[in-house]
């Protein structure tokens, strides 16, 4: 049945070559943990992506209950965690996954660094990777505020003060982030929500696409 559907689509759209390009590629011996166990370090990039997918999925589901409003944000988080079935699990996935994605990404960066994989001709991919790192930290920073509890509020106050310490344009960055010159409040929360669920994910998707197209075009770097 599935084969028939596949054949029907393939006959019309010739999707097999596309599928080949995505899934059919060489895995050299030196990156295959079945050959050298130490090659597991080459899995960190894929694991980062795997956790990112979990973050996207759990985040999509969390927004079914969450409201980015000073009156209701904390209440809605409390409700979805304690009153909705599996709420603790879904919020837990997003909460712990957020930390894990940073850890995995850092390990991936170390692997690329110590295998020298950033060298010519892969400099551009290193740059894109660093941009992804920045976007991920931005996602972590903006997401931290959303539960609107004491920890979130004061962490954001500190974060915004750090941003405000930038010479010359610090004050401007602060106002743009907080939405107000003095208050960390209603506008800060809606801004951080918009940045967290629309702007940064859009940037992340574009950068990830570039990252993956480049690695496929250039192949995995050779053995040490």
């Amino acid at each position, binding site marked *: 049945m599935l084969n028939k559907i596949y054949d029907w689509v393939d006959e019309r759209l010739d999707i097999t070559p596309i599928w080949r390009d995505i899934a059919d590629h060489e895995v050299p011996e030196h990156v295959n943990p079945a050959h050298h166990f130490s090659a597991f370090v080459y899995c960190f990039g894929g694991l980062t992506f795997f956790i990112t997918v*979990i973050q996207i*999925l*759990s985040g999509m*589901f969390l927004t*079914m*209950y969450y409201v980015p409003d000073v009156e*209701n944000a904390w*209440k*809605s988080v*409390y*409700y*979805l965690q304690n*009153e*909705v*079935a*599996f*709420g603790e*699990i*879904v919020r837990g*996935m997003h909460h712990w996954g957020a930390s894990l994605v940073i850890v995995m990404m850092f390990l991936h960066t170390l692997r690329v660094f110590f295998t020298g994989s950033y060298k010519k001709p892969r400099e551009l991919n290193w740059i894109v990777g660093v941009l992804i790192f920045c976007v991920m930290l931005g996602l972590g920073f903006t997401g931290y505020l959303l539960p609107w509890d004491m920890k979130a509020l004061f962490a954001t106050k500190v974060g915004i003060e750090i941003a405000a310490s930038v010479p010359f344009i610090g004050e401007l960055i602060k106002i743009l982030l907080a939405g107000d010159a003095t208050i960390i409040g209603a506008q800060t929360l809606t801004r951080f929500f918009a940045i967290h669920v629309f702007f940064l994910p859009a940037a992340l998707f574009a950068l990830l696409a570039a990252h993956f197209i480049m690695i496929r075009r250039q192949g995995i770097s050779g053995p040490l």
Partner: protein
Amino acid sequence: MSNNRVSRRQFLNYTLTGVGGFMAAGILMPMVRFAIDPALQTKAEGDFVQTSQKVADITEEPVKVDFSYEQVDAWYTSEVTDTAWVYKSGDSIVALSPVCKHLGCTVNWNSDTEHPNQFFCACHGGRYEKTGKNVPGTPPLGPLDAYEVSEKDGFLLLGKKIANNLA
């Protein structure tokens, strides 16, 4: 033993699909259950709500009775005001919901001069007789819902909505 040899490729396909499916299910199951939770919540029993309508004052003519109660909507609790059309039918009291069974607009008693002594919905001209029975040929396909009624200290109490058994 079957004579079909399982090739290495087949074996890998099956195990990887199995393990992958198991992982995907483990990730998606909590999220899907989380999302469909509203459909699986058990409905709370409707308590009777006190109104300010004295039972002794109810006549054969339907009157509008407003009543309010506390509504818990997930993390938002608020005071909600609802309405019923109340009249006396013989010895019993009838309380009808003003929600039109066509598309949910609000009906009024005796508001259409061409059709006196009927409930009338201004949206699409739906009409109901005094019992709540929908007039054939007008948009609604069923009678108006009724409220369970009770009495306490001379005042009218309204319960949950039930199917109209007068019409």
